[in-house]
């Protein structure tokens, strides 16, 4: 019950590995996504023991706007440019 209304309780979802597609990454693993391809990427990166991210390009550390980073690098373990 929350505020007098019945809800279904869902257990948190964890993953051993998350495969995430993003747009750009830097050396610390900070990510920005492109357009509507953000999907569940930011959420699953936080919920996985190992987050592996495919990006279209790797950029210099410091070139992503710190206000616009969607997934901070702490949630990212591997980056693949493809």
């Amino acid at each position, binding site marked *: 019950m929350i505020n007098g209304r019945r809800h279904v309780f869902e257990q948190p979802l964890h993953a051993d590995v998350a495969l995430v597609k993003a747009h750009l990454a830097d050396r610390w693993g900070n990510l920005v996504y492109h357009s509507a391809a953000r999907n569940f990427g930011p959420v699953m990166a936080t919920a996985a023991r190992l987050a592996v991210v495919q990006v279209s390009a790797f950029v210099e550390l410091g070139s992503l706007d710190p206000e616009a*980073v969607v997934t901070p690098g702490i949630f990212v373990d591997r980056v693949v440019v493809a």
Partner: protein
Amino acid sequence: MNLSKRQMAARVAQDIPDGSYVNLGIGLPTLVADVVPPGREIVYHSENGILGMGPAPEPGTGDPELINAGKQPVTLLPGGAYFHHTDAFVMMRGGHIDITVLGAFQVGEGGDLANWATDDATMPPAVGGAMDLAVGARRVLVMTTHTTKDGRPKLLPACTFPLTAAAVVDRVYTDLAVIDVTPDGFVVREMVDGITREELQARTAATLHFGVEP
């Protein structure tokens, strides 16, 4: 004999590996950032919403909205990012922070930590993110003077102040010793020069064991 605050910070910094995500608590622990050995890249987290926090700005050049959890002006390193409090706490509670260094009023021999409230009614309690850090960080290091200013022990069989978290502390760095919390209780790994085991025990309410690091 007693280590200075800066010497304590330098001893803690030795144990922070290259590439770690680290949250430094308010007070003594913030000194650690100043003495990390050169060549180590440490990514500092602040629970108000910063990853990649840099040192204090030159006086007069700070941004009043770029501050750490202790409200002190800081800077952002290249690669840093800003986020809201919930994401900052996801990092802490979700086990993403490698190391936190926290101050303490008391540490229990089972690893209990009390660092947010005392029995002094004139001192308002202030917990900040300490509970979430203590439970969520992978490794919890405590940096504190060995005794209070009036000489009372801080390392106790059990804390008497309200707990921040139970059974979380991995290692305690004081101005006299480096002490691990183990299943057998406190095990002293290092002592400053000029103090005997008996003298250290006399300043500690919990029973101390002595042993080399396995």
